[in-house]
């Protein structure tokens, strides 16, 4: 069944057979296999096609450095994940894997014809080849490139894989669980420190898992068993396998991703450690020779790993090309152990100059030390160009934690095999970066064209840009640059190492915060009561706010019109709980508020309320609200829903940093009060029916006042006589837990007056009819109080935040835009929203001179006609000429008449009742 599986041996569990498919072929492996080892056990080497030339590619390595064997994987019922390395995917029952980059299939791939054009697909080809003729780019080249470029096909379905974000903290974080990491973690843990050991593999041990060496005089396996026992016994040592560190950030921060077997579900971990130990091992480097990319040409240590760890023989007849004598011997023993015939064991004086084999290597050609050309047939090449430490993570961050990069030291084990023969006459492509199909020739071309700096070489050739980040490409490329340019490798240097060390799915970074988990949802205390009434809600920032309350069979327009008219003719009620509310106390409370708001507050008596405006430091209007004088040095202030958080932060900033001498205490009471406004001519009658224990007639509770007491002898309340709709109105505040009671009482007693609960739509229409400003429309971060006709609120006798810069010439200029009202000249044409003001109708294709913009436009149920608010240059003084509202989007122009920005009760008599 598994033709290349050895009879015995390996760390696999032969009692557990796993079924999986690869390119629709039913295959079997064992528990403990990686996808790569299972494929090799089934004698499948050809797993991918390369990105540019679509050359057949196999499995080069057994780890994260894998550059060729990229696959798309899918769990049963799962969503497919692209660009996974066959070597990092642990086999699971039912796994569905497939090749990428090939059509119709990996064995016969039409794209491979591109090899014929290799001469023009060289470095920087996309900057040159497709430039001419210019018109061909969109028509031809772009389509061609899109077809053949890219790796894998992203699944656009809803991602059902599971993701999360988590944090962990420790004294020492050890990355890598080879013999080095294990020893370091044990030592630190035994000294009593809290230690976390993370390992990207599913087992601890690193190369000690399979290398036939001795550690501390013990065979590696025995040593590992001994150490594993100790690790288990230590409570202060936390071990996390399948956890890959991918980013190293300032202040002891490591980001890692913990994945399930198939690498589909993932948790992004943020570790914060006092010390980090990098024990990430080293990566074996390939050799560079023509045809070094064929399936069956593998890294020597990886071959040993497949034999000893997975019990797989990746070939039958091998050629060895290994520089280090000790490693040569280990590999020879491994091949003998696996019954693989050694066709040739090349010494360092020999050099491979060609290989053959369409889908798998079957012949190798070399020049020997005597300069004789030789060849032999084989199906496996075990190569090694030396080892390079995995320094990437340690060097990712900037100073001072950075481990300095010494390229000379880094590459000390990879001395270049000085070519025996003139490599310029060698035919065939010698690959430096297998994943991006970058060859020796591309590097020569880049340097020849002046792209000599290592960072430019990278960008011009794309070397090292792949999902493997050039782990098996950079060292050879730097050696090659040394050869081409004659520069010292210390001068050549290395490109900057950046996160991510190995790919991380965006899902893992996002975590579980998708859909309605993205931001917290805020509901007001009336939410449940409203929902029972069939309220339609809408989001407003983090809030879910009532929009309108349709009766059976009513459309939105009908419901909103009914709600508005109820307020104008009888009574309505609306939720005001989202307003920010802050309790201000202290000897300097008045001084603080006087500095904060533009209004004169000295004259505000206890029990009275004032509408107030707040500017930014640069004189621009920022927020509005009310200040209520509750008692001696005690105020309640409100701010808009939108700015509640920012104003709270700002007030604290002033007190903590700029005016610490002021004796003021702020307490946010936004969430403590449920607030329901009753508005309309019958508001006072309804309030009386709620039985407050204080006088509410016009003289004892006039407009702009606050009263505290009990409702129905039981419920503590604060009632403010303030109005946003322009009608007589009371904002009833009760402790948040009594919202349901209050709403039931109001609706019950309101039946006498045909009360209507209303929502944001009606609220907005009522305020537009009245010309009241609102944040985000008229208060748009560019207007001043005077622009909006509120200059009179500004105290002349004091300075306040923004008063100085409000005097800048441009802010007082006569041509500034001013708030105006608009009605259609014909009395009935709807005025398009979000449109502009112009002195002439719009002609398509022209750039009109704009003199203003709309801030609000509605059909007024009260007036039974369209009305709008706008910011108009020069304000009303310019209203002599004809004015048009133009909407190029709707291709409409409506002639309008400029009117004062208040359409209902301009004298403001109704709010006194």
């Amino acid at each position, binding site marked *: 069944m598994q033709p290349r599986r050895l009879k015995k041996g390996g760390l696999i569990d032969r009692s557990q057979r796993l079924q999986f498919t690869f390119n629709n072929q039913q295959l079997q492996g064992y528990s403990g296999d990686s996808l790569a080892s299972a494929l090799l056990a089934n004698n499948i080497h050809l797993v991918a096609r390369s990105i540019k030339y679509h050359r057949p590619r196999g499995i080069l390595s057994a780890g994260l450095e894998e550059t060729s064997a990229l696959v798309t994987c899918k769990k049963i019922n799962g969503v497919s994940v692209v660009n996974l390395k066959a070597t990092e995917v642990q086999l699971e029952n039912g796994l569905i894997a497939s090749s990428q980059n090939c059509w119709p299939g990996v064995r016969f791939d039409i794209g491979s014809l591109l090899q014929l054009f290799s001469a023009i697909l060289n470095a920087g080809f996309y900057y040159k080849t497709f430039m001419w003729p210019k018109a061909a780019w969109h028509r031809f080249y772009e389509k061609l490139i899109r077809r053949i470029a890219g790796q894998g096909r992203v699944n656009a379905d809803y991602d059902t894989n599971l993701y999360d974000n988590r*944090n962990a903290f420790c004294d020492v974080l050890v990355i890598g669980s080879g013999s080095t990491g294990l020893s370091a973690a044990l030592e630190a843990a035994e000294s009593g420190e809290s230690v976390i050991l993370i390992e990207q593999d599913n087992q601890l041990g690193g190369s000690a898992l399979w290398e036939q060496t001795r550690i501390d005089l013990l065979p590696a396996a025995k040593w590992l068993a001994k150490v594993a026992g100790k690790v288990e016994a230590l409570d202060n040592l936390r071990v996390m396998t399948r956890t890959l560190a991918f980013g190293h*950030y*300032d*202040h*002891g*921060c490591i980001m890692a991703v913990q994945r399930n077997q198939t690498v589909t579900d993932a948790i992004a971990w*943020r570790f*914060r450690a006092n010390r980090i130990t990098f024990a990430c091992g080293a990566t074996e480097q390939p050799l560079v020779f023509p045809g070094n990319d064929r399936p069956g040409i593998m890294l020597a240590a990886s071959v040993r790993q497949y034999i000893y760890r997975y019990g797989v023989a990746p070939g039958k007849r091998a050629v060895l090309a290994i520089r280090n004598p000790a490693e040569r011997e280990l590999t020879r023993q491994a091949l003998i152990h696996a019954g693989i015939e050694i066709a040739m064991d090349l010494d360092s004086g020999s050099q491979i100059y060609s290989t053959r084999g369409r889908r798998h290597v079957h012949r190798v050609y070399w020049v020997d030390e005597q300069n004789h050309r030789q060849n032999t047939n084989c199906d496996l090449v075990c190569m090694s160009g030396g080892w390079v430490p995995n320094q990437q993570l340690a060097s990712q961050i*900037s*100073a*001072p*934690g950075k481990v300095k990069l010494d390229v000379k030291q880094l590459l000390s084990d990879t001395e270049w095999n000085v070519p025996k023969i003139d490599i310029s006459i060698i035919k065939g492509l010698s690959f430096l970066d297998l994943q991006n199909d970058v060859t020796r020739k591309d590097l020569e071309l880049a340097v020849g064209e002046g792209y000599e700096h290592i960072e430019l070489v990278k960008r011009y050739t794309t070397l090292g840009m792949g999902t493997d980040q050039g782990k098996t490409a950079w060292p050879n490329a730097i050696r090659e640059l040394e050869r081409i340019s004659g520069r010292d490798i210390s001068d050549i240097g290395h490109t900057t190492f*950046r*996160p*991510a060390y190995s790919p*991380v799915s*965006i899902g893992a*970074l996002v975590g579980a915060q998708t859909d309605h988990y993205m931001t917290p949802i805020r509901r007001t205390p009336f939410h449940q009561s409203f929902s029972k009434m069939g309220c339609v809600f809408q989001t407003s920032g983090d809030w879910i706010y009532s929009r309108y309350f349709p009766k059976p069979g009513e459309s939105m327009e009908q419901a909103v019109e009914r709600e508005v008219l109820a307020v104008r003719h009888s009574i309505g009620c609306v939720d005001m709980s989202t307003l920010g509310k802050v309790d201000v106390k202290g000897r300097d409370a008045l001084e603080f508020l006087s*500095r904060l708001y533009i209004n004169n507050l000295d004259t505000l008596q206890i029990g009275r309320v004032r509408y107030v405006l707040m500017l*930014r*430091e*640069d004189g*621009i209007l*920022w927020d509005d609200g009310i200040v209520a004088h509750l008692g001696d040095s005690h105020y309640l202030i409100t701010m808009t829903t939108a700015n509640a958080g920012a104003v709270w*932060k700002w007030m*604290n*900033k002033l007190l*903590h*940093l*700029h005016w610490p001498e002021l004796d003021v205490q702020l307490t946010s009471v936004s969430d403590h009060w449920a607030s329901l406004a009753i508005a309309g001519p019958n508001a006072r009658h309804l309030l009386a029916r709620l039985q407050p224990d204080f006088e509410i007639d016009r003289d004892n509770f006039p407009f702009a006042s606050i009263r505290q007491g009990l409702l129905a002898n039981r419920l503590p309340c604060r009632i403010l006589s303030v109005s946003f709709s322009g009608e007589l109105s009371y904002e009833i505040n009760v402790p948040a837990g009594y919202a349901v009671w209050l709403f039931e009482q109001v609706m019950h007693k309101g039946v006498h007056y045909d009360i209507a609960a209303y929502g944001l739509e009606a609220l907005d229409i009522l305020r537009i009819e009245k010309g009241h400003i609102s944040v985000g429309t008229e208060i*748009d*971060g*560019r207007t001043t109080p005077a622009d909006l006709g509120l200059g009179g609120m500004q105290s002349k006798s004091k*300075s*306040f*935040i923004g*008063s*100085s*810069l409000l*005097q*800048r*010439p*441009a*802010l007082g200029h006569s041509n500034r835009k001013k708030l105006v009202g608009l009605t259609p000249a014909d009395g009935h044409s709807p005025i398009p929203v979000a449109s502009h003001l112009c002195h002439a109708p719009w002609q398509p294709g022209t750039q009109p001179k704009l003199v203003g913009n709309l801030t609000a436009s509605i059909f007024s149920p009260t007036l039974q006609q369209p009305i709008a608010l706008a910011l108009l240059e020069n304000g009303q003084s310019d209203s002599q000429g004809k004015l048009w509202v133009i909407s190029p989007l709707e291709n409409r122009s409506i002639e309008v008449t400029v009117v004062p920005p208040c359409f209902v009760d301009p004298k403001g008599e109704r709010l006194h009742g």
Partner: protein
Amino acid sequence: MRHWSGTADIPMDGNAIVGETPIDNLYINCGWGYAGFKTTPAVGWNLAQWLAQENHHGNHKDNTPEMLKAFSLRRFSDDALIDDAGIGPYPWLHWHMLLLPCPHCGNRDESEFDYGGRSVEMPALEAATMDWHQTLHTRKPMEEWVEEFWFHTAGCERWVRLWRNPITHEFASEFIGKFVGDPVDNNKNNGGQ
């Protein structure tokens, strides 16, 4: 995913500065911040064409091209700012992943904080327009250590002053000392103004 760290040149209203300067015949075109890649080619053409105009030399009547007018340096002191987003002179974006020494709570993850910009001492409310303009719209060049304001939103809810080294990402607070590396040179003069 790629990321980077460094400083981006951003005027305090988030828009570039293009045009004349108080020095005769010195023009500037800078401060494109995060958004200049798309814009600068067109602006470059416009600026060059303007400068090349014959009637320009020695001619002090304002013939700034319509397109560039809004970007003048003068806008900060006497003009209205451009401020597309309507957010005022607070153009900073956000970062992450650092550990900040809150004087009240100790070392805490940066995600608990809100950034409040370089530290600036507020002029008196009645101070002249120019003083307020200087404070809000100009900054000294970054130096090795800068003092900044941070709000410990998810902690003690206090505004604190922290020292940051923009080159090394080291942080320090006067109360609990430097977090990484050597003690801070407590020279208060080099943070903001």
